[in-house]
Structure formats: C-alpha cells, structure tokens
C-alpha cells in the first residue's frame, strides 16, 4: 500500500495512519484492546460496542478508548 493512500486519525490524542475502509473493530483488534473492558468514543459520540464492525473510519476521526484505573 502506498503511504499516500493512508489516512490519518487520532487515537487517544496520538496520530495514527490506517488504510482506507479500516473498521473501528479492526482498530480495536490491532491495538489488542479487550472489548469488555473498554468504552469507545468516536468524534465525542459514544459507540455501541456491538456496532464497531459496521463503522468505517474516516480521515480526521478522533477516537477515545478508555478503561477503569485506580481512583478515589
């Protein structure tokens, strides 16, 4: 794949490059995230985890992936 065909997205504040037609599910799999322990926001909208295979990522998308950490 030519690098020019790649699209830029932002995941947790960091820029990433993906190939076109890359799904949100593919991203979660690529990042090795356990789906039952995270929540996902796409452009500030919470995504139903059951639907992630149907969502194709677009240029400039901002994704937040969160989980629980220690807190008071």
């Amino acid at each position, binding site marked *: 794949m030519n690098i020019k065909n790649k699209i830029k997205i932002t*995941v*947790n*504040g*960091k820029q990433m490059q993906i190939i076109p037609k890359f799904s949100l599910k593919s991203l979660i799999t690529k*990042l*090795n*995230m*356990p789906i*039952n*322990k*995270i*929540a*996902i*926001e796409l452009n*500030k909208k*919470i995504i139903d*985890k059951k639907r992630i295979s149907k969502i194709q990522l677009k240029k400039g998308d901002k994704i*937040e*992936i*969160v*989980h*629980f*950490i*220690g*807190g*008071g």
Partner: protein
Amino acid sequence: MIDNKFKIANKIFKSRLIVGTGKYKSFSECAKAIKTSGADIVTVAVRRVNISNKNKARLMDFIDPKKITYLPNTAGCFTAEDAIRTLRLAREIGGWKLVKLEVLGDKRNLFPEMIETLRSTELLTKEGFKVMVYCNDDPLMAKRLENAGAVAIMPLAAPIGSGLGIQNKVNIKIIRKQTKLPLIIDAGIGQASDATIAMELGCDGVLINTAIAKAKNPFQMAEAMKLAVISGRKSFLSGRINPNLFGSASTTNKGII
C-alpha cells in the same frame, strides 16, 4: 438498637467501608488491601488506555467487578458536561449505573463546585444513573442534592487526601438529622479514629482511599479502618452516656471500711 442494613439505591451491602483504588504502589497491593478492608464497593476512575503499551496491567484484571461493586467516579472533572461524558463512558464499559459524582471547583483544595455538582446530579438522575454525590458539608446543599435525586450524600470531612479528619462535626450531625438517605463521609479521613467518629456521628458509611493506600502498612491500615467503622457503628447504635462535667464513681460507697 438493631442495625439496619447498609442499603444504597435499594441494594444491600455488607461493609460500611467503601475504599478507593488510587495511589497504591501496584494493582496487586491495591487488591490485597481491598480484600483486607472487607469493602464490597470500590471507587474507580475512567481514563484513556495506554495504546503504546498494549500489555500494561489493567485494574479489572486484579479486581473482579463480578465479585466487588465498582463505583465509577468523575475525578478530575470540573464541569457537569465533563462529569456526564465520563459517566456515560463508564456505563458503556459494562453497564454501571451506580456512580460517584465529583465535580471539583479548585485544583488546590479540591473542594466540590456545588452549582455544577447540583446540575450534574439532576441531569444524571434524569438519564437513569444512581448518583452518590461528593459534596461540601453544607446542610442546605445536601437538601438540594436530595431533592435533585441523589441516592447518597457524601460530604467531605476535610480536603481530599488531606488526612485532617472531621473538621465540622456540627454540620455532619445536622445533615444526619435532616436526611434519611445514606450519609457517607467521603474524603479527609486520616486515621482509624476519624472513621470511628464519622460512624459515631450517625453516618452510614465512610469512603477512604489515601489514608489506606499511603499508610506505611496499607494492609494493616485497611484492617484498622474496617474495625474502626464496625466499632463506630456499634458505638452509635449502643446509645452513649450523657457527657458530664463532674465525676461519677464506678464503685459504690456502700460497705466502705
């Protein structure tokens, strides 16, 4: 007096001690301290996952949310919008509806921003959340939170993490008198006697993080807090004697030689 069950939003909990999971040296230390404390509710925070280190340990791998109730918090939120966004994400992770709302107004003393806290309580309650609210020890605001649908009132004893103990016993007593909601001291506990005093004031529970996590021996402190809460509750229910300025001999003078 027979003890009532510790009930929050119609769910009964065994322990009146709620513990935080922050500030521990490791997740395994945290998990061991929680076990020793006997707590069946733990507070947790929502943050970004580390995408550069995929193998980093996760809290949920050490503390099983099926065995202990996770209480997601809104630590670090300064507006109602931030708090709602955070708790919607927490709900999405695994269906959590019982939450701890904490909207701060000042980075230095970590006091709650009560106007935003009240607004958040109303909005979250409308969305179906069961909101336990970190708040100031102000009886009027506590009443407003109750009217807005809070399921527990959680006034501070002193600033978060300060370990100063209960600074305003009178206000805590007034709030106790006016509400039937669970009243839980949240923040400011430093040592076991502080937890006992909270319970002797009639509080339903105590939430502790720093005092256990940063103690030299967190496991021993976790046990001390567990016993302190039990002790304070029993003391409260037993009906203390009236304080008296003068002495009253424990031994009768009858038969004195």
